């Protein structure tokens, strides 16, 4: 079956859609919803819907969905905190299509940090009360970018098992589809002065095909978890800095992942320029790859800035704050710029169409 690729590129000035049949020549359409910032956009491979987190000042933030691959868009009923709540929906940080076994279910993470479930393909949203009722919620605090729930990591085999990542609130796990949650921050091999991961989770990914595998990018740490494990294994050694946001996990190899380390204070790539670091052994070792990337460029890629497609020969993509999008068709060894002069890229989501 012939596959083609589509990238949903969220920028600070609208959503761009890039399409390619060979992943070499790309067309770029957009922007949709400019000048609104698009914090994240995603594609649902189950039934070809597209979702966009449109965090507008005019008219407030909203979620839109498209059933025709971006030709037309409809607006969801907003996530809404219950009457009497002291919180107000401010913006959406992440939209995650549900598991293949739960048709019509879509999840969203927002600021203020909360988890929302849609059971009608994104038309309406219901607050996950169990997570909201966690006594430890009072300990959550904003990070530099606000206090949001941004990672929704659904297990490959079991739709009832998932983790959420919160900045700054740590990781919570459910094994009953969100009816109950438990804090899940215990680490192994990391800083000896604390038993838990640092609570500022930057990105938490579930392997899409192997149950139990997780890759997590934390503020100053990187962690791995294998099936059956109940702690996060420290895998930061070998990276040039401890800080970063962008991360991706190989869909066909449960030992391989990528990340882009950044300077912990400047939030940009360190000398000698931006590079992608790859592990093929669950984070035990990391290799720097920068072929094709601009030498010496102190670029930045954000939390949602990196993703991969689902081709047999997986393509990896990331966007930068200066409006570039890069692609690798050799699993991260070399890179090619496939878009430039876009607005500040906030998110890149890779969809595989077939």
């Amino acid at each position, binding site marked *: 079956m012939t596959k083609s690729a589509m990238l949903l590129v969220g920028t600070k000035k609208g959503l761009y859609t890039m399409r390619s049949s060979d992943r070499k020549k790309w067309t770029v359409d957009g922007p949709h919803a400019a*000048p609104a910032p698009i914090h994240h956009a995603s594609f649902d491979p189950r039934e070809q819907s597209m979702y966009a987190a449109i965090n*507008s*000042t*005019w*008219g*407030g933030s*909203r979620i839109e969905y498209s059933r025709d691959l971006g030709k037309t868009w409809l*607006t969801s*009923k*907003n996530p*809404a*905190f219950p*009457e009497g*709540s002291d919180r*107000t*929906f401010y913006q959406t940080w992440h939209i995650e299509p549900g598991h293949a076994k739960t048709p019509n279910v879509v999840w969203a993470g927002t600021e203020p940090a909360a988890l929302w479930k849609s059971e009608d393909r994104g038309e309406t949203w219901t607050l996950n009360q169990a997570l909201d009722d966690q006594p430890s919620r009072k300990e959550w605090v904003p990070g530099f970018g606000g206090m949001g729930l941004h990672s929704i990591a659904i297990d490959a085999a079991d739709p009832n098992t998932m983790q959420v990542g919160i900045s700054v609130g740590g990781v919570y796990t459910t094994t009953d589809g969100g009816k109950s949650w438990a804090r899940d921050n215990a680490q192994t091999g990391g800083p000896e002065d604390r038993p838990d991961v640092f609570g500022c989770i930057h990105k938490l990914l579930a392997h899409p095909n192997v149950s139990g595998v997780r890759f997590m990018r934390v503020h100053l740490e990187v962690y791995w978890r294998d099936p059956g494990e109940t702690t996060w294994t420290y895998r930061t050694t070998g990276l040039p800095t401890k800080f970063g946001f962008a991360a991706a996990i190989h869909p066909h190899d449960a030992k391989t992942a990528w990340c882009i380390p950044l300077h912990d204070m400047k939030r940009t790539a360190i000398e000698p320029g931006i590079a992608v670091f790859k592990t093929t052994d669950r984070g035990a070792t990391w290799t720097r790859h920068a072929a094709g990337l601009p030498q010496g460029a102190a670029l930045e890629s954000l939390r949602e800035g990196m993703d991969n497609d689902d081709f047999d020969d997986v393509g990896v993509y990331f966007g930068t704050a200066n409006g570039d999008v890069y692609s690798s068709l050799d699993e991260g060894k070399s890179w090619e710029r496939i878009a430039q002069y876009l607005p500040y890229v906030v998110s890149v989501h890779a969809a595989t169409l077939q």
Partner: protein
Amino acid sequence: MSSDVVARQKGVKVLLHGAWRQFAGGAKEVALEATTLREALEGLTERYPSLKERLRDEHGKLRPHLALFVNDEDARLLGWEDAALKDGDILHVIPALSGG
């Protein structure tokens, strides 16, 4: 006075500007009956339900980055939602200057 002029002066005219037209399916102008700005906004969202969540948050508070003018007057100086309206008034719904 002709009957046409009387008809034009009856009620309030709401003019949607910029992004607010998009939120109302492209509508530019709405005629309705209202004696306060609050009533006018209620009438507007009854006519265009898609505007409801764009104008107010889930707790009913008007969103920021929204400018409302009654004729040439900033509605904030007229009592905001309590601002009185009379037949022939024009309520402007404007995206407030913001962003960069």
